[in-house]
């Protein structure tokens, strides 16, 4: 046994930092969250066991149902908008007809390096009801002035726009690298067979991008479920655009209901875990794992 340890000491030593950090900063916190969620605790003193009370309270808390609904809206609209636009932009960047490619690549990837918090402040000004440029443009076109961030009905729109604006480049890059990996020969053969652009897109490009698109969808899903910066900076009235993760933060670190906030975390963990398991099952069915 000691001989084996000596023989394999080096690789175990090299990988050990990850496992130690994972244990201390990820596994223990997640298990601990589960425990705190069954208690009442303000962070000081001893947690008091309350059983399922926090979960029962959650069912009647309109802020929780608001936050859940908002997050689902962010998730669905995020997946749809990001995948569609990122694919369109990646296809355009990959088109042999496109000139000034370097310029277009540089500009379209730019938003990704811009901090969402700083951009949130800027978008807050652009979407300002009275002073914002967006309403000015709408007014010039004869439209109404929209209370983007002061009326509940509109407050989610700037959040979605900011989030997608910043993150689309990332998925454009991923899809573009997928497109670059598709052999030109497929398209040449298809052209010889007389298949047009649309036909080629639907019978070559899309099927071959399927796995990457699926990967993108999952990443967007995880990113939207833990969205925080965008609704935090572009806060609308009440809980009109609060995300689930943001609500957890508010309960935990602004009102110090750590038990209740942990129950929200558990919901988040369950959702993220089920998405991952679903991914694994689907991939296995596709025979990839």
């Amino acid at each position, binding site marked *: 046994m000691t001989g084996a340890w000596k023989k394999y000491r080096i690789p175990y030593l090299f990988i050990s930092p990850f496992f130690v950090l994972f244990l201390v900063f990820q596994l223990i916190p997640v298990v601990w969250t589960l425990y705190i969620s069954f208690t009442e605790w303000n962070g000081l003193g001893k947690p008091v066991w309350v059983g399922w009370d926090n979960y029962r309270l959650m069912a009647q808390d309109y802020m929780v149902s608001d936050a859940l609904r908002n997050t689902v809206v962010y998730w669905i609209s995020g997946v749809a908008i990001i995948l569609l636009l990122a694919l369109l932009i990646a296809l355009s960047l990959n088109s042999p*007809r496109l000139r000034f490619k370097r310029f277009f690549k540089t500009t379209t990837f730019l938003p990704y390096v811009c901090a969402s918090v700083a951009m949130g402040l800027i978008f807050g000004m652009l979407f300002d009801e009275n002073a914002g440029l967006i309403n000015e443009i709408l007014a010039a076109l004869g439209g109404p002035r929209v209370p983007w961030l002061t009326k509940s009905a509109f407050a989610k729109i700037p959040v979605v726009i900011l989030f997608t604006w910043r993150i689309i480049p990332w998925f454009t890059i991923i899809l573009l690298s997928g497109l670059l990996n598709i052999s030109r020969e497929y398209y040449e053969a298809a052209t010889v067979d007389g298949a047009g652009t649309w036909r080629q897109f639907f019978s070559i490009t899309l099927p071959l991008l399927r796995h990457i698109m699926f990967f993108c969808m999952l990443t967007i899903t995880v990113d939207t479920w833990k969205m925080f910066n965008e609704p935090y900076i572009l806060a609308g009235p009440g809980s009109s655009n609060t995300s689930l993760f943001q609500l957890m933060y508010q309960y935990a670190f602004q009102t110090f209901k750590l038990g209740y906030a942990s129950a929200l975390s558990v919901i988040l963990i369950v959702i993220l875990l089920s998405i991952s398991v679903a991914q694994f099952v689907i991939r296995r069915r596709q025979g990839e794992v």
Partner: protein
Amino acid sequence: MMARRSSLHSALLHGFMLLVALVCIFPVLWMSLIALKTVGERVTGFHALTISQPTLENFRRLFTLIPLWSNLFNSLFTTIVGTGTTLFFCSLAGFAFAKYRFPGRNGLFYFVIATMMISAEAGAIPLFIIMRRLNLINSLWSLIIPRIATAVGIFYLRQYILDVPDELIEAARIDGAGDFGIFRRIVLPNIKPALASWASITAIVRWNDFFWPLLFLNKNSKYTLMVSVSMLPVSDGLATPWPIILAGTTLVILPAVLYYLGMQIFQKSGSFAGAVKG
């Protein structure tokens, strides 16, 4: 007929991409413009687009509102030390997974990948308590230590270390190089491009980090620039001084943009395919 259709196609393509480029650049340009205006000047609607007297006064005012130098130092410190340490430990683990045979290697590697499913954010509450017990609240190390070895980083760098020829490693071993010597003199120089692109991405993510510094730091002088700037709208008390706020956001965004333009980070997009397909 064919020619006309294809020139229409080309016009649509370029029109679409011009629109995309405009939408991508506009907010950043617009911010830089307003940051140069005097506070008294009108910044509403289209007025925002013209400047009569460009001034750097807003940047000077920032120094009176926030401890700018310490915030800047904190941001730079966490970005540079955070990126450096994570590159080192991720490639070290990637090296072990790629080039050593040891019991449980595959199982442990799948485990590393599986940990990506749960994000650290889910355990934010106990993490705060742990940091408090470790006396790391208000310490920049709270932002660095938990991410010293990340699953994505290990996964990404392992892919590239796999391609380092075994012969090189064997030759070095015969020459008497130790394990760490091989890592430093053979592996690291051979994966420079991967290290560079991973460093760029990590650096930008760390620079832009907001949630963790907001959680772990709670003193003005300990804030990173990002947290300080996010609090600008409330720190002045009076009506929103947009030019000053946007001077703050300019200070935050400009370094990242210049770095991006200088390094041409995403131009070799092919290099991401390997990391992503897994």
